[in-house]
């Protein structure tokens, strides 16, 4: 779910304008909370984790510098998690993304370091390679009917091997500055010296205004369709919350070096993929396929084509993550991307995906990824070793999914 099209209209209590309010409103609100328990639960959990480490690390966690750091550190996992979420919603799994990250970063290194490609061309070629890899796997899964677990397990081996072949076991570096900026750069600065990053402030104000306009337009259209809307005071509260959140985030980023380039990329992906999954026919078909393949097929959903596209999308996102990773490391290395597939899968499940498919949102995957990312960063800040970090991350995954299952069973659905 993108910030532009939040789930809020769904969860809004459908208070009939004239009919019995009170009890009905409370019931609808409770129901909506229960339906979206996993997502709200994780959002609250993320808040608590942030608070915990903020106190534990004596305020280091939310220093503007560290916030930028968290964003950049986790960018590639978040990008992968968004794609993985869609794969899981469709009822599949992709184990090959880590190896594909490595392969694409290796190819980008070969193109730029060995063959002096200009970096935009290398980036474009890398994304095409990712699309081709996704199409290759999607073909076997969608059209031949080999289970995705097998196809992508094969892909995991194939792409890892290809990485070592093209790199000949060596690391390749350095990359052009422009390419490095994908992962390490910030929005350029302009205007007078204000102690804040001017363009970031402008961008923040712009985003805030846009969101408000969006909310206002949605409400007006819903009213014109005579649909139920949020009661006016609640709606005002919601708007105030949105403005507040945008302002805090803007000030935080603007007081360091501004918006990281990679954050812009991720925000763009989140908005675009969230919109596709919610509002574009193909996205809705992904949910239908994952929820009940037989019913979806009988409703005329082109299951093969949709499955194929889901894997092409995953391939392109893996390639993008590969480029970001290479840019951050400033090198193409044979061991790149190891275990990334598992981090992405974990993020998707923490963020509300269901093992059987059909459930989850792209926004949820980002929340799940951030939970893992903040845990990583926070535990490093307070000096816990990677050994303990792994144990704790594993337990968090187990707890998140366990809580969800317990909650569903209690709700009796």
């Amino acid at each position, binding site marked *: 779910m993108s910030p532009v099209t939040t789930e809020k*209209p*769904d969860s809004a209590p*459908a208070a009939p304008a004239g009919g019995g309010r009170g009890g*009905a409103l409370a*019931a*609808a609100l409770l*129901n*909506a909370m229960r*339906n979206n328990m996993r997502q709200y639960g994780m959002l609250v959990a993320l808040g608590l984790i942030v608070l915990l480490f903020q106190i534990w690390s004596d305020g280091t966690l939310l220093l503007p510098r560290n916030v930028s750091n968290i964003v950049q550190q986790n960018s590639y996992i978040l990008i992968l998690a968004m794609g993985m979420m869609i794969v899981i919603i469709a009822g599949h799994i992709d184990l090959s993304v880590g190896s594909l990250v490595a392969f694409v970063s290796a190819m980008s290194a070969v193109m730029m370091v060995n063959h002096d490609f200009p970096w935009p061309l290398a980036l474009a070629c890398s994304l095409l390679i990712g699309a081709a890899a996704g199409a290759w796997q999607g073909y076997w899964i969608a059209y031949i009917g080999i289970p995705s677990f097998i196809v992508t397990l094969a892909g995991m081996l194939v792409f890892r091997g290809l990485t070592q072949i093209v790199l000949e076991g060596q690391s390749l570096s350095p990359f052009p500055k422009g390419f490095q900026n994908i992962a390490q750069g910030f929005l350029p600065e302009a205007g007078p010296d204000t102690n804040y990053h001017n363009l970031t402030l402008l961008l923040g104000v712009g985003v805030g205004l846009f969101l408000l306009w969006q909310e206002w337009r949605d409400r007006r*259209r*819903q009213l014109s*369709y*005579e*649909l139920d809307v949020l009661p006016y005071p609640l709606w005002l509260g919601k708007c105030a919350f949105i403005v507040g959140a945008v302002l805090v985030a803007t000030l935080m980023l603007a007081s360091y070096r501004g918006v990281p380039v990679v954050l812009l990329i991720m925000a763009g992906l989140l908005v675009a993929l969230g*919109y596709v999954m*919610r*509002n*574009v*026919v193909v996205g*809705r*078909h992904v*949910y*239908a396929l994952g*929820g*009940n393949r*037989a*019913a*979806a*097929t*009988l*409703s*005329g*959903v*082109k299951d093969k084509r949709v499955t194929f596209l889901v894997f092409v999308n995953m391939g392109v996102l893996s390639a993008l993550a590969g480029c970001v990773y290479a840019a951050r490391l400033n090198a193409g290395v044979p061991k790149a991307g190891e275990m990334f597939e598992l981090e992405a899968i974990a993020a998707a499940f923490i963020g509300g995906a*269901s093992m059987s498919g*059909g*459930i989850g949102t792209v926004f949820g995957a980002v929340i799940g990824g951030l939970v893992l990312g903040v845990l990583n960063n926070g535990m490093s800040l307070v000096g816990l070793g990677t050994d303990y970090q792994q144990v704790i991350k594993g337990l968090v995954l187990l707890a998140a999914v366990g809580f969800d299952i317990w909650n569903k069973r209690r709700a009796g*659905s």
Partner: protein
Amino acid sequence: MTAPVLEMRSITKTFPGVTALADVGLTVAPGEIHAVCGENGAGKSTLMKVLSGVHPHGSYEGEVLFEGEPCAFRDIRASEARGIVIIHQELALVPYLSIAENIFLGNERASRRLKVVSWNETLRAAAELLRRVGLGAEKPQTRIADIGVGKQQLVEIAKALSKEVKLLILDEPTAALNDEDSRKLLDLIREFRDQGIACILISHKLNEIRQVADRVTILRDGRTIETLAVRDGGGAEDGDGGGGEGGGLSEDRIIRGMVGRDLDHRFPERSHYRGADAGTVALAVEGWTVRHPIDHERKVVDDVSIEVRRGEIVGIAGLMGAGRTELAMSVFGRSYGRYEAGVVRVDGREADVHTVPDAVRHGIAYVTEDRKTYGLNLIDNVMRNITLPSLPKLRRRGAVDEHEERRVAEGYRRSMNIKTPTVFETVGRLSGGNQQKVVLGKWVHADPEVLLLDEPTRGIDVGAKYEIYTVIDQLAARGKAVVFISSELPELLGMCDRIYTMAAGRLTGEVPRAEATQEVLMRHMTTHVRNDG
């Protein structure tokens, strides 16, 4: 009569909102073949589930006495320990294990302490059991997948024998069998009777009941209607069954018991379509033949031709396994079985319906019998289920218009009276009747020209049925061609302009509304077995 081996007294079983069994009694004498018959949904399977412990003691009211002792089975194992074994219509065999392993599955011939399977003993015992069921020629090591359905059924019976069965329950044992296999099976049941094993036989095939059963109990709407002796004076001699009525119980007598309910269901007044193209044939199916998806020997739909006109509601009646669903699903984008022959014409032109999108493009919709498996995405909400097939229609500048979508869904919620707090409620939480309205709403909005409705009122209460009938009537009044498949004869009689009957994959009759009665239909629906010989 000697003391009964089984006595079920005033069994009452309710499910939320439905009374499946009300005060049902059943008494089986030792060494008797006792048939239980009734329409689909009359309560036969529920009664057997109570008997076998699938519905555990305490979840029903009434008493079960077996060999004179009261029984309180908590599960199937408990009833099997007493020698009551049920063989379900869907065989419960593991295809990639051997015959011997299947026979002793869960009951392995193994050493007492370490539970090591003794293969010699397993194979020896299996071979003996196979001989007893007339499969002496099969090796116990053969995989189940490698033998035919008829032999698989016999393996199930061998499995039952391995448990020292005293009362064998067979649920539609011959539904999937050809004539010869059926005959072998029935002979075997008769042999068991002579060995003192009592048998409850659930069957739709009335001639089989006449051939083998001693008595028949008829259930209707969850009640015991009557228990009849099949042969006068104890029936010592086994009739060959192939001949005429020859004394004893007639099939008509059984049919009367099965269908003779009060016609107190209410149907909306049928409205009429008055468009210019009224009466033109919208859907014609010609020579449609489909084979079973796995068992290619069997034709599940055999040379069926039907036509449906605009504004017409055409019923298809048939008992379980008659091929009604298979016909509808295979016409709808060949979603079932292996297509063999036949043409589909929509508005007189031959239509390519190779895939579901093809069928949808030609304006055909199929509302499925099994809404949970094929009809709904249970984990998604009401709105998204309704709009799924028609999402492209809701597009504005490439994206689904959420507001329009919500308005459409709200519209159906109101017009079809779907009882849900909001259209964002998860479909899985709705009642069966409301789920069915969602399925119908989904296809009404897709606006097809031909609707294939498969058991659209199955498992829902009377009030919701009336609302669904009203929707169907309105569809016809708008000039749609409706095919209405149902196991409930009264609703076909109440709603349809014409009724086709099917049996064993073939069309066995076409009855106009004026001539249709339950007796006439039931006769057509059960004729096939006699005509086969």
